[in-house]
């Protein structure tokens, strides 16, 4: 059995004439929590979509459990996705279903389990995220943190081998953030799964990740354990980890000369 459950090999991806990734290589070992970090628009979420087979790479390949994702037909991709669970940035709960039905959804759709067993499993998943008492609520009645926890329960409903998290800490209060942080680590260890976290929240991600990749300008700019990266002297990593305003990533977006633009009589209309 391959040590890495997901492998990204010399991957390039672009759209609308813009190359987003240029020859990226990444390894995601079984049982580990691996983070992909980088600034907004650096293509972190796109990497998750490439792993999930929602889009195809321009060059290179993504292998999940030894299978090349983009070479699969629709049934093959669906088969691979059954090994995956994904937590979307805003939860993506089905708004017409209750909390209970949201968690039960993958079980009802993809298994032949009897309803009594589904009930027990849903309650166990909800209990694991601390929301068994909210099983009757509708998504609209939940706070942002609660919705994220329900979505997490749904993502692990079928005990996947790979759990992908797209910005799991975005927009959460400190308590919810701590809860989600703890849940990601504990669920990963309890299920023996591999977690892939896409985030730009340094503190929380470094707390739970075993290994971190930094993506910038379409390439892997740095990689290592959180401890290594915290003390990295690479200018980009230093700027990102310490949240400095100016550095390799400039404060100003590239523009024409300031003075000449102000003096130019042409308007933007």
């Amino acid at each position, binding site marked *: 059995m391959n040590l890495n459950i997901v492998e990204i090999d010399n991957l390039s991806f672009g759209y609308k004439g813009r190359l987003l990734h240029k020859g990226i290589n990444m390894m995601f070992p079984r049982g580990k929590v691996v983070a992909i970090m980088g600034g907004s628009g650096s293509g972190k979420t796109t990497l998750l979509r490439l792993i999930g087979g929602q889009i195809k790479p321009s060059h290179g390949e993504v292998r999940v459990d030894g299978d090349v994702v983009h070479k699969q037909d629709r049934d093959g991709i669906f088969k691979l*996705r059954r090994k995956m669970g994904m937590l*979307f940035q805003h939860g*993506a709960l089905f708004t017409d279903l209750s909390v209970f039905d949201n968690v039960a*959804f993958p079980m009802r*759709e*993809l298994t032949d389990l009897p309803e009594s067993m589904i009930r027990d499993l849903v309650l166990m998943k909800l209990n694991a995220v601390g929301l068994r008492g909210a099983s009757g609520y509708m998504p609209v009645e939940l706070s942002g943190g609660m919705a994220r926890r329900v979505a997490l329960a749904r993502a692990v409903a079928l005990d996947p081998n790979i759990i992908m998290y797209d910005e799991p800490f975005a927009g959460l209060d400190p308590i919810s953030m701590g809860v989600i942080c703890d849940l990601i680590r504990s669920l990963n260890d309890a299920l023996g799964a591999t977690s892939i976290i896409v985030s730009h929240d340094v503190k929380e991600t470094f707390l739970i990740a075993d290994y971190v990749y930094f993506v910038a300008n379409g390439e892997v700019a740095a990689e290592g354990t959180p401890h290594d990266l915290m003390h990295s002297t690479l200018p980009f990593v230093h700027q990102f980890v310490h949240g400095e305003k100016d550095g390799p990533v400039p404060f100003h977006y590239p523009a024409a000369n300031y003075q000449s633009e102000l003096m130019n009589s042409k308007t933007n209309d």
Partner: protein
Amino acid sequence: MIKSTLLIAVARMLRGLGARMIDRIWRLGAGARLFFLTIFYSGESFRRFHLILREIYFTGVMSLLIIIVSAFFVGMVLALQGYNTLQKYGSSEAIGVLVALSLVRELGPVVTALLFAGRAGTAITAEIGLMKTTEQLSAMEMMAVSPIARVVAPRFWAGVISMPILATLFSMVGILGGYLVAVPLIGVDDGAFWSQMQANVDFRVDIVDGLIKSLVFGVACTMIALFEGFDAPPTAEGVSRATTRTVVISSLTVLGLDFILTSFMLVV
């Protein structure tokens, strides 16, 4: 100088026209693809008929109020206008036939489809557009569940099943509205109203043709609403534009199809 500016303007106009044409053809192809995929995935929807029943409630049952109230007024206006013309020729007893044929052949299927597009069609587009915006469709795909099988197909069949039932109800309520104006209000003979209707409305030619029309309108209106929702850009503006397009395209399609179907039905 003026000549070259004019040429540039014409070239730009032609380029814009060409781009719009390509976009329309692309959308037509994408719509046809969604239609065939919907048919392909329909077996799963029929195996879990409760999904279709649930959508029939939202698209059909929830449209009942607007359909019944509109039908009642349309029937009453038809009786008033019809009586006004028929009495000039001494044929006011034929008012029942006029109301029934107008409703069963034309107004029932057409007005129901227009109301359906405005009420249920927009709801379908907005719901699917928002599901796309909030990544619910992506979440479904990532769970290895096809959104076409789970979301699109049940709504499609609910629309197709609901439309003929709603059109039939429209015609029935419209006839009742016409009766209340013609008989108790104007004083047309009760027996003449119903007997002339019974004698002149043919089941095969009038009622079945009306049902065929409403079935075709059901397919068109529901598919347009589903495609617009599925194709909407995942933004607030995108969903709003898609909802507007649903009403405009559905209405024009219904009126155009009505002319084509009527032509064929009269010839055959």
